């Protein structure tokens, strides 16, 4: 009996000692950023940013580099990701990746089949920003340091989220959104484009951390528009916000509205809701976008009396017209210049008018260009900060 017990214990200890997949924290290095560029000799060039955790903690920081960027070339990202130990010392894990940057060149040539790896790999999760590096090489994006969050990938991730929260210049797309748009018959993907302001060569040094105005800074640049798996162009950050408005993804923004000659009022928009109604009328898609927003006044340069309901109504109207003008202009621009349905109108028609969508499905790009889009805006101005009249109204 005792012998049997012993044998069982030994056998169980073999089975229970842990799986083959255990990896101690001291044996791994965490990759937080990936950058893909076109290779010189082979298909891709992958740069991975690994963090130096002791430098990110202010107590243990010793003034060394916060992260290490290493670059190698090969034909698939999947292979390169496992080949990082050409330079890196520890086992690189990708589960905490925060930023994925691809170069403009790769996107223009439509070499984005590596997205499959990102989707298929069990370690990589869909919580990283996916970006285009505009005008600079993507590994430069990873290399530029930043005083507050030393590593570039972490900085970008926080920066873009803050942007989404307060102004809305980042389309807030994740891998899943991109892939859904790529595979959908009535939608095209977008990504945020980032760039480096300053000299990227000087940005990859600790000296950059010591400047009040850093030598180089990674900035959010514009919105990259795709069509049929290829990058076809960019629209400005203002258009990005209008895009978010049309997509019902805008959470908050500040808007300058003209209220007189060279005079503006600033409205903080919050609680914005957008509904899209889509149907085909005689073969032409008709999209009705209705935007419902709440707002409060943040600044006034005009001298209207803000204690009067009349003024509120006037400003409301001005804001509505401004939003309508902006959103319609962006839609028109994308329709005419790019002809790429980034707003997902096709998907709306697919959802709401399936039978008619089937007829134009194969020619949706053409239909999108013809689409008649009506924008209806309703702004509810709620309050005006902690002052009533502007100081301007009592001008001597």
């Amino acid at each position, binding site marked *: 009996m005792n012998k049997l017990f012993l044998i069982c214990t030994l056998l169980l200890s073999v*089975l229970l000692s842990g*799986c*083959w*997949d255990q990896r101690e924290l001291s044996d791994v290095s965490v990759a937080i950023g990936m950058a893909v560029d076109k290779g010189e000799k082979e298909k891709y060039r992958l740069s991975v940013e690994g963090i130096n955790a002791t430098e990110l903690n202010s107590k243990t920081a010793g003034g060394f580099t916060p992260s290490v960027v290493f670059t190698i070339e090969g034909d698939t990202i999947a292979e390169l990701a496992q080949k990082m130990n050409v330079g890196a010392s520890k086992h690189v894990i990708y589960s905490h990746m925060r930023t994925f940057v691809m170069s403009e060149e790769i996107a223009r040539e439509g070499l984005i089949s590596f997205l499959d790896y990102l989707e298929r790999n*069990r370690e990589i*999760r*869909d*919580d990283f920003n996916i970006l285009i590096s505009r005008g600079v090489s993507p590994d430069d994006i990873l290399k530029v340091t930043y005083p507050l969050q030393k590593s570039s990938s972490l900085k970008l991730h926080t920066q873009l989220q803050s942007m989404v929260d307060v102004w809305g210049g980042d389309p807030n797309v994740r891998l*899943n959104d991109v*892939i*859904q748009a790529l*595979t*959908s018959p009535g939608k095209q993907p977008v990504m945020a484009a980032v760039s480096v302001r300053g000299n990227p060569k000087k940005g990859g040094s600790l000296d950059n951390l010591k400047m009040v105005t850093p030598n180089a800074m990674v900035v959010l640049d514009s919105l990259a528009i795709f069509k049929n798996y290829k990058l076809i162009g960019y629209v400005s950050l203002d258009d990005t916000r209008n895009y978010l408005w049309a997509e019902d993804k805008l959470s908050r923004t500040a808007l300058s509205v003209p209220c007189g000659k060279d005079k503006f009022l600033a409205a903080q928009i919050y609680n914005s809701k957008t509904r899209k109604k889509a149907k085909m009328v005689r073969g032409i898609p008709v999209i009705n976008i209705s935007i419902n927003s709440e707002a409060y006044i943040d600044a006034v340069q005009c001298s209207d009396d803000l204690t009067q309901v009349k003024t509120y109504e006037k400003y409301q109207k001005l804001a509505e017209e401004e939003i309508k003008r902006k959103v319609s202009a962006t839609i028109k621009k994308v329709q005419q210049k790019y002809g790429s349905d980034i707003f997902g109108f096709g998907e709306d028609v*697919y*959802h*709401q008018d*399936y*039978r008619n969508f089937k007829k134009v499905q194969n020619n949706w790009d053409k239909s999108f260009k013809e689409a008649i889009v009506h924008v209806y805006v309703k702004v509810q101005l709620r309050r005006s900060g902690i002052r009533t009249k502007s100081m301007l109204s009592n001008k001597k």
Partner: protein
Amino acid sequence: MMEKENISLAQLLTLLINFLLGSAIVVGVGTDAQNDAWIAIMISSFLGIGIVFFFHYLNSRLPGKNLYQIIEFCLGRKIAIVLSFFYVVYFCYISSRVVRDFGELIASAIMPNTPIEIISLTFSLLMAYVIYLGLEVIARTSEIFTPYLFGFFLLVTIFLIMNGSVNLERIQPILGEGLMPVMKTVFTKLAFFPYGELIVFTVIFSNVTNKKYSLRIAMIGVAIASLLLLVSSVLMIGTLGIDSVQRSNFPLLSTVRNVSIGKFIERIDALAVFIMMLGIFVKGNIFLFGGLKGLEYIFNLPFRYFVLPISVLVALFSVLVSIDFADHIQEGLQMVPLYLHLPFQFCIPGLIFLIVIWKQRKGNKVK
């Protein structure tokens, strides 16, 4: 010689729920019907209730007898032994397929470096241990863990909704292609898997103590399981979109991986894996138990003698049953329904049912 094991109604209910969730929730069902997968599941739930009613009725014609004894009653012991042998092979085969489902899940999504043989073997040994202790223990295990299943399922649902990832617009257009693809999915896929697999319960119904309510409970169990499948299907399509669901090997897992609430509640794969593991455990166990009961009938020996060898065989065949994942899925979706499910789930039981009715009517006349 063979003692009678009893299970209560609550245990039957939880067994049924876990059994139906089993591998169905792992690999995702009804996705052939595109966006209307949930409608397909809804319709097939009625079919499922009908199927469980049929199997239960078959059992209740001859109270206290299980599938093998019913076959004997109809065809005599000699033919019954042959037929039982086929059923034993069928049940053990499905059991190893179910274990393989779990092995694939672990090997491709959780622990890729661990050999699938080890996972199959440990899992089968666990099943062997529980079965050795008897049906009552399987039933109690499932009874104890089912509240956790509901809890985790609810948590996953709440997290997904809180996360804002469920977009119900994605299930539109409803019935865009009409009812035909849906019905086709119901009758060619869902009728066999998971509902037709309830055939193995014809071995278990005879152990339920409370005969009066067992039918009602069985139907409620099927309804609850269908509801869970339906909700999971809506969550999957609403979160990933049908295209992604169809491209996912384990759609529920992919769905749950999306959860990230406040950068705090995230990486909750374990909840989904628990739901799947419990389902697989109960389903594999019940199929194995059905097979062992058949051996008990054939050899007239208590099934406990066969537990260890058969479960090791199940572990072995769960590895050998297919060389790769595509082979596994293709076999499961194309070959098995036609060549195994159809005869074993519907043809033979249907035939036996007719013979039972005929024999009983004849017997009544003689009296």
